[in-house]
């Protein structure tokens, strides 16, 4: 007998008990969340790339359905999108650029001053009691100038980030290309590693995640484009300046549940009031945005099927606040499908666990009885 073996019975034995799986999972999720929070810039980049890949994937699949090689399908779709984007940019960007330059020029600030003066006078004529609240025009102009200076002070910093923005614009399509090209291979690798008795539930969970996020993101993109088109046309018909820029802004803002449409409507109403130097267009713009929201709820969302997320309103608002706080605007957009997918995954895993608990209970007959006599 070895000396260690002889000494063993005298020493107190310490047995290591592995922690329960729930604790291991909780620790793993906490670590991933902490890394995501610390490296939020990279996470946002990856999320955006994955989202783009999701939006594009149906086109690739359509080609694959015709037995086109996977790599060729992915490359072909990206080349087609690049060409389409270039043509659209060549047609739309000059007009959009002119609108943005006009908006950011000094003439627009002068226009704001004149409009606010006129609206101020109108209000005081109508309701003289408001004069005490609003103050005299000089002090009001000073207050407005201070706010304007505060808001534009960060613009040079924003321009210094132009290089980073350009890198991100290049990196997102590149990342999404590789996501799309290699996702199937990675999935296959994962499939081959999964134990056979876990595979059905694992793939059911994966299908559910793919279905929810894919539909949501594709629906969101289509919805944003539809809203942008309708808003631009509506604003152009109303004679509001910068209809293209404001339409695109409305489409993009619409992706944020609850807050987005309200935000875009308010901005457009303010610009319309400044342009016409009157409160009258406020009603027209409000009516237009109510009409857009009505079309969105009744037609666009029904056709895109993208917003079919079933989250409790409190959970939805809570998710938006957390997503916005952690990752800004992009966080608010992507948090909804992520939380919905997590909700569905939890449901499926609980169902799997429940079934596994009663897995060997003998069932001699299926729930739907088979008739003994069928003609």
């Amino acid at each position, binding site marked *: 007998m070895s000396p260690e073996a002889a000494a063993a019975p005298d020493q107190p034995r310490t047995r290591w008990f592995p922690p329960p799986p729930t604790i291991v999972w909780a620790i793993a999720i906490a670590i991933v969340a902490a890394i995501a929070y610390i490296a939020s810039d990279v996470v946002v980049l990856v999320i955006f790339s994955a989202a783009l890949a999701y939006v594009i994937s149906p086109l690739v699949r359509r080609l694959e359905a015709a037995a086109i*090689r996977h790599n060729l399908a992915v490359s072909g779709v990206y080349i087609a999108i690049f060409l389409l984007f270039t043509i659209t940019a060549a047609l739309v960007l000059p007009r959009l650029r002119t609108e943005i330059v006009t908006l950011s020029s000094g003439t627009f600030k002068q226009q704001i001053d004149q409009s606010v003066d006129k609206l101020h006078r109108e209000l005081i004529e109508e309701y003289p009691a408001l004069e005490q609240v609003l103050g005299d025009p000089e002090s009001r102009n000073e207050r407005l100038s201070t706010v304007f200076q505060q808001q534009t002070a960060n613009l040079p910093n924003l321009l210094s980030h132009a290089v980073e923005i350009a890198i991100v614009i290049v990196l997102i399509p590149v990342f999404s290309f590789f996501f799309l090209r290699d996702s199937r291979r990675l999935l296959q690798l994962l499939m081959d590693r999964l134990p056979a*008795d876990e595979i*059905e539930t694992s793939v059911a969970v994966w*299908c559910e995640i793919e279905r929810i996020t894919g539909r949501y993101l594709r629906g969101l993109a289509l919805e944003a484009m539809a809203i942008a088109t309708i808003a631009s046309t509506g604003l152009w018909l109303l004679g509001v300046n910068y209809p293209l820029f404001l339409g695109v802004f409305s489409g993009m803002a619409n992706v944020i549940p609850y807050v987005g449409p309200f935000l875009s409507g308010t901005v457009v109403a303010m610009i319309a009031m400044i342009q016409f130097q009157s409160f009258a267009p406020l009603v027209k713009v409000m009516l237009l945005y109510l009409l857009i929201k009505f079309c969105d709820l009744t037609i666009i969302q029904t056709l895109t099927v993208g917003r079919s997320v079933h989250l409790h309103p409190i959970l939805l608002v809570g998710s938006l606040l957390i997503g916005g706080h952690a990752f800004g605007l992009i966080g608010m957009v992507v948090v909804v499908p992520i939380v919905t997918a997590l909700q569905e995954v939890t449901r499926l895993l609980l169902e799997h666990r429940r079934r596994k608990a009663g897995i060997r209970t003998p069932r001699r007959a*299926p729930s739907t009885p088979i008739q003994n006599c069928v003609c």
Partner: protein
Amino acid sequence: MGWHWREWATDPEQLRRLKLLACVPLFAGLNRHQLGKLLIKLFEKRYPAGETIFREGDPGKAVFIVLDGRISIIRAADGAEKPLAVLGPGTYFGELALIDDQPRFAAARADEDTTLLILYKSHFDDLIEGQKALAVHVMENLLKTLAGYVRNEQARNALRGSKGQVTLAEPAAAERTRR
């Protein structure tokens, strides 16, 4: 010899799968376009010889199509394994999972290194949402298969009945499905 773009652009493995799917009775009547749509929903998994694909009583969530290899469908009876069927390339099993996720009636095991194409119910549901014609074809084929089971059971019961035994029909043995 000229350059054939079609040969260069198409994936021979995908073409082979398309041909195989066209021969699967469950997908009989589907056109090339519908088969293509179905094909991109399928997962492929390799099983080494002896590995269990699913066990008796597992919840059914997918239908399996044998691409390569051989599968045995077995059922435990009186403490022993009773083989129900041996399936080769182009055959399918577990099709009742497309209807509901009730427990599997029998187990499936790979007899040799086998590659299966797997169609999950979630994917099938997703597919038929926008493809009513496809859904009708697959469901019709499924109904024909089920009608076949029921007739077999009736015939078996009638035989037993004639010998003076009264028995209830066994649950449909969907896992025995084959060409």
